C-alpha cells in the first residue's frame, strides 16, 4: 500500500536520519550523547566537527539474495552469490586497513529494497556501497541515484522516494573520488547515473558499484584472484575518502 510505504519511510527518516541534523546549515553527522562534544575535538576551524569513529562505518550491501537471484550468468553462477563473495572480501580488505565495515546481508536471504534502505538509514554509516555484478561490458561502473540535486524537501520530513536528493552532492563527490582512485590502478571504470533502488531512499552518501569481467569470460567474476584485485583496489579508494568523510564531505565538494 503506497501510504504504508510512505508512512514507514517518513517515520524512519524522521527518527533515524533527519532529527540529528535539524538546525544545522551543513549536515555533518551529529555526535551521540555518549561521545565527546564536537567542540572538544581538535578541529580545523574552517571544517566541520570530526565525526565520531563509529560513524565512519562502511555499509556494504550485496545486491539481491534469497529468491532474488539477480542475473543468472550460468546455472551455477548467480549474481547474488557473486555480490556476496565480493562484499565479504571487501569487508575483509577494509578491516585490514582499519576501517570498520558491515554487510547488510551476510546470508542468502531476501531483503526488499525498502528494508535495505531502512536498515542503512538506521545504522548511520559514513558511506553506503551497493555491490552488483554483470556479464556485460568490462571493468567497474560506479553509479549514483538519478535524482535532482538538492530535492524539494522541506522541514523535518523527507520524501521517501527522493530522500537521497539532499545527499546527492556528497554521493557524486564520493563517486568521482572512487572512480579517480580506481582509474589510477589502470582498471577500467565509468561513472554513471542509475535509476536503481535503494539508492533513492538512502540518507547518507550512497553509490552502487557494478563489476564486470575484463576478459569477457563471466567465470572471472567468481575467481578469487579477480575478486581480490577488485576489492583491494576499492578498499584503497575508500581509504583515500576517509579523511574527507571524517572532516566534512560538504566542504570537500565546494
Amino acid at each position: 500500500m503506497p501510504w504504508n510505504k510512505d508512512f514507514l519511510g517518513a517515520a524512519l527518516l524522521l527518527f533515524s536520519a533527519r532529527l540529528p541534523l535539524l538546525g544545522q546549515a551543513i549536515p555533518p553527522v551529529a555526535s551521540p550523547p555518549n561521545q565527546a562534544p564536537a567542540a572538544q575535538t581538535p578541529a580545523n576551524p574552517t571544517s566541520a566537527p570530526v565525526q565520531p569513529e563509529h560513524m565512519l562505518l562502511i555499509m556494504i550491501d550485496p545486491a539481491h539474495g534469497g529468491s532474488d537471484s539477480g542475473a543468472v550468468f550460468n546455472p551455477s553462477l548467480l549474481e547474488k552469490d557473486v555480490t556476496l563473495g565480493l562484499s565479504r572480501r571487501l569487508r575483509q580488505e577494509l578491516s585490514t586497513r582499519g576501517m570498520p565495515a558491515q554487510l547488510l546481508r551476510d546470508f542468502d536471504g531476501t531483503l526488499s529494497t525498502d528494508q535495505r534502505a531502512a536498515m542503512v538509514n538506521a545504522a548511520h554509516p559514513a558511506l553506503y556501497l551497493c555491490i552488483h555484478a554483470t556479464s556485460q561490458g568490462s571493468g567497474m561502473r560506479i553509479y549514483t541515484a538519478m535524482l535532482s540535486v538538492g530535492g524539494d524537501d522541506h522541514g523535518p520530513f523527507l520524501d521517501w522516494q527522493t530522500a537521497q536528493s539532499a545527499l546527492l552532492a556528497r554521493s557524486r563527490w564520493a563517486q568521482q573520488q572512487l572512480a579517480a582512485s580506481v582509474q589510477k590502478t589502470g582498471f577500467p571504470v565509468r561513472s554513471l547515473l542509475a535509476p536503481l533502488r535503494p539508492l533513492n531512499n538512502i540518507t547518507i552518501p550512497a553509490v552502487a558499484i557494478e563489476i564486470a569481467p575484463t576478459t569477457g569470460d563471466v567465470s572471472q567474476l567468481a575467481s578469487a584472484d579477480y575478486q581480490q584485485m577488485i576489492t583491494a583496489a576499492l578498499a584503497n579508494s575508500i581509504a583515500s575518502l576517509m579523511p574527507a568523510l571524517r572532516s566534512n564531505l560538504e566542504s570537500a565538494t565546494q
Partner: protein
Amino acid sequence: MIPRQFVIATVILFVLAIGMSIYVWQLRHREITAPRPARAAPVQHVTPPASGPTERVTVYVAYDDPGELRAQSISIPLSSGRQQRAEEILRGLLNVYLDKNSRHLMAAGAEVRDVYLVDPGLAVVDVNSALVDGQTSGVLAEELTVVSMIQTLSTNVFGLTRVKILVDGKERETLAGHTDLSEFYDVAQVAELAKQLSVQQ
C-alpha cells in the same frame, strides 16, 4: 399401476443419460490421450501499419559492448496523429533492435503495445512482456534499454517532461531486476544520463 407412457419416457431418458455419459467419457479420454498442441505463440498486439509519408527521425540506439547510446537516423512511415507517431517511432526503434545485426539484445516478439500522451507532458509507454522477459539483467544493460526508449521519445515528441513505463498494462518494480520502473522518469534527468552514455569515458 404405473402408466405405460411414463415407463417408456423413463426408459428413454435413462438410455439417453447413459449414452451421454459414455459420450462425455470418450471425449475426456480423447482429450487426455491426444498429444497436446505446442505452446501457443505469444499474442501479438495487432496494430495497423502506418500509412503516412515516410519521414526521417532520430532514434537513440544502445550498443551493449561499449555500453553506449548513439543517435541514429531512420526512415519510417509516420501517421499525422501525435500519439500514433509516438508509437510508430518507438516501434521503429524496436525494429532496429530486432535486426540480426543489432548490438543490443532484445527478444523476438518484443513490442511497444501502446503509447498514451497525457497533457501536460506525460507519456505512458506500455510494452509487452516479451520485451521484459528477453532483457539482459544488469544495471547498465537495463538502463540502456530504458534511456534509449525515453530519449528517442522525448527527442521526437515535443513537450514531454515525464515518462512512465508499464508492462502489459501493469506497473512493474524493475525491468529485469535492476532498473526501476515503479516511478515516473524525469525527461531532463534521462537526458543527463543519455549524455553520459553517449560519451565513452
